[in-house]
C-alpha cells in the first residue's frame, strides 16, 4: 500500500490551516498521509496524519520549488515513491507543484475540488471556465500524480492516527533561487475588515469613471466600498480594499456584491459574511451559488436607483 506525501505550508513559523486540506483528501482516498514541513515543532498535529516529516530547511528555503524537488527526492529515497504528492492550492502550491511535476515527469492536476473512484480508477474533479464547469480527469497511466487541493474542498473525518515524527537528513540548497524576506502590504486608508456593510464592486463596474457612483452609494448607506481583484489590479481602488485570498478576508453583516462573478479566490474572502446580496446581470455567475439573495440585473441601474431613493428620502 502506498502513501500520499502532503507538502505543508507554514508562514512565520505557523502552520497554515490549508495544509490540512490535502491531508483530509488523503483520508478520503484511503491512503496514509505523510505531512512534510519545514524545521519546527508540530505537536498539535499529533493524531492528524500518519507521519510528520520535518525537513532540515527553514521555512524560507523549504517553500522554494527548487529546494523542494531535492527534499522530495530525499523522501522518495527514504520511504519509496508516494502514490500522490499533494499541496494546498495556494501561492506556494502553485509555485512548487507544477515545477515538481515537470522535474519528476509526473502528471499534474491543480485545484482539485472533488474525487471519486470508478471501475477504472481514480477520478479527480477540477473546476474550469471561471467555475462554470467541473472537469472529471482520469490519469492515463498508473504512476503517481502531483496535485494541488482546493481549500475547504474536503472535510476532516476526525480520524485519530498514531502520528510518527521523523526528521529528514540535511540536504544542500539549490543556489539558483534564494528567499530574501517577507513584505507586508502598506496599510490602506480604510480597514475594510471592520466594516459592517461592504458595497463591493467587481469587473462589472467596467471603467474607473464609474467608481465614484459606488463610492457615493456606499457612503449614503453608511457603508464602505471594497472590490474584487480585477478592480484593484487596474488601480481603480487601492489594494487594501481588495477582498479575497490575496487581499482581505471579511465578514461584515451585509456584503453587497455588485458585478462580481465569484471566482473562488474571492468567495474564500467573503463567504462568512452574515448576509450576501449579489447583483449581477449574468444568471449563471457562480456568486449566486454562495449569495443569500440574488438580483439578476445590471449593477449600474441598481446603484442609480438606490442612490435616487436614498437622496429622495433626504
Amino acid at each position, binding site marked *: 500500500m502506498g502513501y500520499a506525501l502532503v507538502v505543508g505550508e507554514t*508562514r512565520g513559523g505557523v502552520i497554515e490551516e490549508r495544509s490540512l486540506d490535502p491531508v483530509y483528501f488523503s483520508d478520503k482516498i484511503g491512503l496514509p498521509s505523510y505531512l512534510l514541513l519545514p524545521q519546527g515543532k508540530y505537536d498539535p498535529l499529533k493524531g492528524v496524519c500518519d507521519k510528520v516529516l520535518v525537513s532540515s530547511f527553514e521555512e524560507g528555503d523549504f517553500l522554494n*520549488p527548487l529546494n523542494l524537488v531535492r527534499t522530495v527526492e530525499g523522501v522518495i529515497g527514504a520511504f519509496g515513491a508516494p502514490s500522490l504528492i499533494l499541496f494546498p492550492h495556494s*501561492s506556494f502550491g502553485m509555485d512548487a*507543484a*507544477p*515545477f515538481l*511535476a*515537470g522535474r519528476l515527469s509526473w*502528471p*499534474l492536476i*491543480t*485545484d482539485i475540488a472533488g474525487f471519486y473512484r470508478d471501475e477504472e480508477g481514480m*477520478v479527480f474533479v477540477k473546476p*474550469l*471556465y471561471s*467555475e462554470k*464547469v*467541473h*472537469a*472529471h*480527469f*482520469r490519469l*492515463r497511466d498508473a504512476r503517481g500524480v502531483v496535485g494541488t487541493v482546493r481549500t475547504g474542498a474536503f472535510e476532516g473525518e476526525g480520524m485519530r492516527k498514531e502520528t510518527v515524527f521523523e526528521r529528514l537528513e540535511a540536504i544542500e540548497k539549490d*543556489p*539558483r*533561487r*534564494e528567499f*530574501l*524576506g*517577507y*513584505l*507586508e502590504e502598506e496599510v490602506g486608508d480604510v480597514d475594510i475588515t471592520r466594516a459592517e*456593510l461592504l458595497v463591493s464592486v467587481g*469587473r462589472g463596474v467596467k471603467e474607473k469613471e464609474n467608481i465614484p457612483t459606488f463610492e457615493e452609494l456606499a457612503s449614503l*448607506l*453608511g457603508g464602505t466600498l471594497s472590490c474584487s*481583484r480585477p478592480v484593484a489590479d*487596474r488601480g481603480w481602488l487601492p489594494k487594501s480594499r481588495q477582498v479575497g485570498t*490575496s*487581499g482581505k478576508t471579511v465578514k461584515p*453583516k*451585509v456584503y453587497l456584491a455588485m458585478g462580481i*462573478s465569484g471566482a473562488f479566490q474571492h468567495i474564500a474572502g467573503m463567504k462568512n459574511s452574515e*448576509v450576501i446580496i449579489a447583483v449581477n446581470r*449574468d*444568471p449563471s*455567475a457562480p456568486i*449566486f*451559488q*454562495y*449569495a*443569500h*439573495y*440574488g*438580483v439578476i*440585473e445590471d449593477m449600474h441601474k*441598481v446603484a442609480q*436607483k*438606490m442612490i435616487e*431613493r436614498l437622496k429622495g428620502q433626504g
Partner: protein
Amino acid sequence: MEVVVLAKWVPVTQEEELKLVRGEKAVDLEEIPFRLNEWDTYAIEEASRILEAHGGTGWVVSLGGEEADTALRRGLAMGLGKGALIETEEELVDPFERAQIFKNFLEKKGIKFDLLLSGVQAEDDQFAATGGILAGLLDLPYATMVMGIEEISEGEVTVLRELEGGFMERVRISLPAVLSVQTGINEPRYVSVTGVLAAAKKEREFLPVDEFSEGRKGRIEILKLEFPPPREGAEIIKGDLDEVVENIFEILKEKGVR
C-alpha cells in the same frame, strides 16, 4: 536580454451560458468570443518594459488554431519583436503536453533566452501550470505569482511573489529563468484595433505542431464535463427595479446596517 512570452488565445466565458458537446467532454465554443488571456497581457507588458530598459529581442509564442495569430499580433503591437504560432486545432487539455511542445519548440529553434514569461494561469482551464512544468522540464529556476520584477542585473533577477493575505516575498533568481506573472503587476499599454491590424506586417512564423511533438503525450484526460451541482443558492429577488431596491433596503434594515 532575450525574452520569450507564452500567450494563449482563450474563450471569454465569464458572462456566457455554456453548453456541453462531444459527449459532454468539451464546452461548445462556437459562439463564444475569444481574446488574449488576461494574465498573458500583463506578461507581454512586463516583457516589453524589460526590453525597453535593457534592449534585446522579445518573442511571443502561442499554441493554438490560426485565430491565435491575433494573440501574436497583439503581443507585437505591444512592443515584442517576433512571433511564432505553433498551430494545432486540437484542444490540448493537459498542461504537461503543452509544456512539452513549448520545450521542443525552444530547443529545436535554438532560442536562447534569459527570461521566459507566462501568465500565472489561463482564464479557460485555470490550471496555472504550463510555465511551471516547462521550467521543470528545462530544469530552470522558476517563480509564479510574480507581482514585481525589481531588478535585473548580471545573471540574476529579484522578484516579488504574491502570497496570501496581503503579504509578498522577495526572492532572488538566477538567469535564465521562467517566471509566471500575476495580474496587476503593471498597467498593460493600450493597443488600438488598428495597431493590432498593423502588426500583421511584423515577423511571424507559423509552424505545424507535428514538428514539436516528440515525447508529447497527454498524461491526463477528460472523462466528462458537468455543471457543478447546484448549491442551495441565492433566493432571487424578482420584480421591477423599484421593488428590487426596496427589497435590498429591507434586508439592510433587518440586519441593522441602515
